[in-house]
C-alpha cells in the first residue's frame, strides 16, 4: 500500500505542476472537501516564512483545525538558500513557503520545479487574476518619511532632491547590499529610467547629464555621493526620523511603512510622503508557494486558503502598509486602501529584476564606500 503510493507520487507531482501552470481556473475542478479531509488526516504542516506574523496566523489556524503547524522563521536569503539546497537534495521537509524576494525565489525555487503555485478556492474566487500566479499573500509598502515636528507638509516632491546639497548627510536607507528587495526595487528605476530622467528635468529645468548607463543608476551614484546614512534596520530608521525634540532630524527612504504602527507606543512624530514623484516608494509581494515534494500538501493548501481570508490575514492587518489582495480588507486606521497605493507606488517587473539586479548591486557597491 505504502509502496504503491510512493510510486504514484512523482506522477501526481507532475500533474500538480501542469495544473498550476495552466492557471487558477483549472483548479476549480478539484474536490475541496476531499482536500480538507486529507488535510486533517495529514495533521501536520511545516512552513518556512520570512515574516514572524506567520507564527501568529499558524497558531490561530492550529486552534481552528487541530493541524499542528511548525513555522521556521528565516531571513529572505536564508529561506531561499535552504529551500533550494533541500530541493536539490530531494529532502522532504517543508510543505509550503511564505517568501519575499520573489525574483530570486522564482529563479531558484519555482523555475527549478522545487515549488509550485497553488490557488486555493477563496483566492480563485476573490483575488484578481494577476495576484494569483504567483499567489500573493499580501503587499508590503516601503516609503519615504519625514519628521512632522519639523515639517507640517511634505518636504520633498522629487526623488532628485535627495541628491542635492540640502539633503547631504540627512537621508537614511537600509543597506541596499543586504536588502534583496531594495535591489529589486531599483531595477524598476532602470526599467523606467526615462521617467526618472524626466523627473530630473522637471525639477531643475535642465537635461540630465549622466556618467552611468541610465538615469536609474545615475540616481544611485549621485545619491551615494551625497553622503547618505546607511542603516541596518528599518526599526532604527523609523525611530531616528520620528523621535521628538530634534532640530535637524534625518529623513527615511524605503523603510517599511508598517513601522508607523509604533507611532503611539513610541510617541513618534513621523509621516509618510504623499508627494514624492515619480514614485512614493515601492511595494513588493509576499508570495505563497507549495512544495512540489510536500509531505502534507493538503494541509498546506488548507493553510493557504485560510491565509487568503480576512481572518487569516489578521496578523498582517494590525498595521498600516500591509495589504491583502482580498477586496474585503478594510484599510488600517489612517491608511489608504491598496488601490490608492498601487496607483502611486512602483512595483517591479519580475523578469527584468532577475536580470538586472546584479547591476544595481554593483553600482551600489561601487559608490557606497566613502
Amino acid at each position: 500500500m505504502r509502496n504503491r503510493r510512493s510510486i504514484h507520487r512523482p506522477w501526481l507531482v507532475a500533474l500538480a505542476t501542469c495544473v498550476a501552470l495552466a492557471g487558477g481556473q483549472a483548479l476549480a475542478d478539484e474536490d475541496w472537501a476531499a482536500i480538507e479531509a486529507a488535510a486533517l488526516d495529514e495533521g501536520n504542516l511545516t512552513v518556512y516564512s520570512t515574516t514572524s506574523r506567520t507564527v501568529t496566523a499558524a497558531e490561530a489556524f492550529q486552534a481552528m483545525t487541530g493541524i499542528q503547524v511548525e513555522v521556521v522563521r528565516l531571513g529572505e536569503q536564508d529561506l531561499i538558500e535552504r529551500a533550494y539546497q533541500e530541493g536539490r537534495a530531494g529532502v522532504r521537509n517543508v510543505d509550503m513557503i511564505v517568501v519575499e524576494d520573489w525574483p530570486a525565489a522564482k529563479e531558484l525555487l519555482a523555475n527549478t520545479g522545487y515549488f509550485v503555485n497553488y490557488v486555493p478556492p477563496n483566492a480563485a474566487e476573490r483575488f484578481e487574476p494577476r495576484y494569483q500566479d504567483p499567489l500573493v499573500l499580501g503587499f508590503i509598502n516601503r516609503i519615504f518619511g519625514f519628521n512632522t515636528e519639523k515639517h507640517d507638509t511634505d518636504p520633498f516632491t522629487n526623488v532628485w532632491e535627495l541628491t542635492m546639497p540640502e539633503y547631504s548627510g540627512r537621508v537614511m536607507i537600509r543597506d541596499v547590499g543586504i536588502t534583496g528587495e531594495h535591489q529589486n526595487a531599483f531595477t524598476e528605476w532602470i526599467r523606467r529610467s526615462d521617467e526618472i530622467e524626466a523627473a530630473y528635468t522637471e525639477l531643475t529645468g535642465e537635461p540630465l547629464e549622466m556618467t552611468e548607463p541610465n538615469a536609474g543608476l545615475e540616481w544611485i551614484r549621485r545619491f551615494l555621493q551625497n553622503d547618505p546614512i546607511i542603516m541596518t534596520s528599518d526599526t532604527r530608521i523609523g525611530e531616528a526620523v520620528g523621535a521628538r525634540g530634534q532640530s535637524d532630524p534625518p529623513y527615511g527612504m524605503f523603510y517599511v511603512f508598517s513601522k508607523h504602527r509604533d507611532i503611539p507606543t513610541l510617541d513618534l512624530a513621523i509621516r509618510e510622503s504623499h508627494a514624492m514623484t515619480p514614485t512614493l516608494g515601492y511595494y513588493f509581494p509576499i508570495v505563497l508557494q507549495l512544495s512540489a515534494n510536500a509531505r502534507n500538501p493538503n494541509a498546506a493548501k488548507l493553510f493557504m486558503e485560510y491565509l487568503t481570508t480576512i481572518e487569516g490575514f489578521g496578523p498582517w492587518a494590525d498595521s498600516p502598509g500591509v495589504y491583502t489582495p482580498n477586496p474585503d480588507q478594510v484599510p488600517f486606521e489612517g491608511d489608504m486602501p491598496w488601490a490608492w497605493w498601487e496607483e502611486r507606488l512602483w512595483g517591479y517587473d519580475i523578469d527584468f529584476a532577475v536580470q538586472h539586479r546584479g547591476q544595481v548591486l554593483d553600482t551600489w557597491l561601487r559608490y557606497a564606500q566613502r
Partner: protein
Amino acid sequence: MRTAVQRFRLTLTPQRVLAVMFLIVLAYLVLVPLFVMLQETFTVHPMERFQIPGSMPGDLTTAHWERTFFGPDSYAFFYRPLINTLIVAVGLSLLALVIGGSLAWLVVRTNLPFKGLISNTAIIPYVMPSWTLALAWIALFKNQRLGGQRGIFESLTGVATPDWFAYGLFPIIITLALHYFPFGFMLIGGAIRNIDAQLEESAELLGAGRMTILRRIVFPLVLPAIFSTFLLTFSRGLGTFGTPHFLGGPVREFVLSTSLYANLIGQRPGIGYLAAVVMIALGVLVLYMDHRIIGARRSFVTISGKGARAGAVDLGRWRLPLGIGVLVFLFSVIAVPIGALAIDTVMLRPGQYSLENFTLHYWIGDAADRIGLATGEYGILRNSQLMGALGNTLQLASVVALICGVLGVLIGYTVVRLRGTVIAKLLDQLSFLPYLMPSIALGSIFLALFAVSRGPIPSLYGTFWLLMIACVVSYLPYAVKAGIGAMMQIGPELEEAAIMAGASWWTRMRRIIFPVQKSSYFSGMLLPFISVTRELSLLILLVTPATQLAATITLRYTDRGWYPYTNGMVLLLIVIVISATMLSRRLMKTDLAKGLGG
C-alpha cells in the same frame, strides 16, 4: 628477525591509528567544505549568469576572480574593503594585546589589589555577544547624524562627538578589542605565570637591569603567547560582520565581510565566497608566520613549570588607584552594556526610562494584546517555546563541549606524541582551519554536504546530529589548542613507565594522561560551550522546528522591533554562561586561560 606482520603491528601504535582516523574525518569535514567553497568561486550560479554573457548556470568561469582582483571596479569591490578589514583586524589585535597584556601583567606580577575579582570578571566581555558593545557605543556616543534620541554623552556634556569617533573604523576597533581582549589576558597571563622566576633571579645576580631582563628574558618567553593572541583575534577580525556593518554603515566604511553578505543576499555566491576564500587565505598566512617565527621557540614555555614564583612587583602608591582604575574599566565594559540590555526588558514602553514605566510584563506577563508593545506573547520565563529553545541550546552546547573536550585530548595526545612528523603537523593545522572559515559559508556548505546521503554517511538533515557536527568542527580549534597545550606539559616518561609496567593504552589514558591535566581539558570545553550558546549564522540554515535554538528563535522578535524579548534572551544566556564558567571553576578548577592552550 621480525616478520613483516610483526613490523606492521609495531608501527601500528595507538597514536598512529588515531592520527590516520582523525585525518580522514577532518579531511572530510574541513577540506571538503574548503574545496566546495573554492569550487563555487569558479562556478556560474543562476543569478550570476546575467552578468556573464553567454554563460549557463553550472559553467566553469574565472569571471568572479577577474572581476574581484583585476576588474575596473576592483578597488571599490575588493581592495578598499580589504584595506579597511586589515586596519580593523590589526588595530583590534594590537589593542586587545595591550589591554589584555597589561591586565595580565598587573594581575600576575604585581601586588595589585582585588586580583581575584579582576581575573574572575576579565573574561566576561568575551561571554557577551560582541554587538552588545556596539549598541552601547551608539547609545553613548551617537551624534545628530544618526537622529533619534540624543546620545548619552551629548546629553550630559552638551558636546557633540565628531563622526569619526562615533562611527566607522575607530569605534569598530575599540568595541571589538573590548570584546576580544580576554584572549590576550588569558594567554599572556598563562605565559607570564609559567616563567620560571629563577631565570630572572639569575639574570639579576649577573647584574642585568630591569629593562634588560624584560627585553632578553620575559619578552622572548611571552612572545609565543603574544603571537597566539594575535592569530586568534586577527582571524576573528577578518570575518566579523555584525559590529562593523552596524557601526560602519552610518559613515559608509565597509569591510570585506560586507562583500560576502551583500553578494550572498544578491544571490551571487560565487563572488561572495571569494571574499571568504580571501579571509581564509589571510588567516592561513598569519598561521604560517606564527609557525615560522614561533615554531622553534614554543618549546621554551613548556620546559618551565614548577619553578619558584617571582616576587610581586610593588606598585607603591599606584597600587590602589590602579586597582580601582582596572575595576572601573571592567565595570564599564561589562555592567554598562548588560545594564543597557536589562533596562530595556523592564520598560513597558521602550525608550521611556521612568519608574512608572517599570514592568515585569516581558518576563512573566500574560499573552496580552493591549499592554506595552502588544506582542501577544507570554513573558519570556513563561513562554514554552522560548524555554524549549533555551533547553535545546543548553543541550547542544553541553554535548558539543563534551565531544570537543574528548577530541581535544585525543588529538592533542596524537599531535604531541607524533611531534615532528608530517602527520602531526597536518593534524594540528587541519584542526585549526575551521577557525578561519566564515561561519555563514560553513553553515551553507554543511547544509549542501549533509542534506543527502553520501556513501556510508546518511542524510543528517533536520537532525540534532547535524547541528552537533557543525558546532564540533567549528569549535574544535579551541579544544585542540587546549589539548596540545596540556599534552606538551606531560613528559613521555610517565607513559613510558606505565608501558613498562604493562599498562594498556586505554589504562594509560584513563589513569595518567587524563587525570594529570584534567582541569586543562575542562577548560578546553568551556570556550566551545560559550560559543555555541550564541552561534547564529552557522546554524540558521541547519535548525528545524524540533531543534530550534535560543539564538535562532529570538530572530522573530528582533525583526518586529520587540527588543525586550531579544534582550531578555541574551541576558538569560549570559547568566547561564557565567554560571557555567563559575561552576566549572569551582568543581573542576578550570581556567579559561588553559582553554586557549596558555
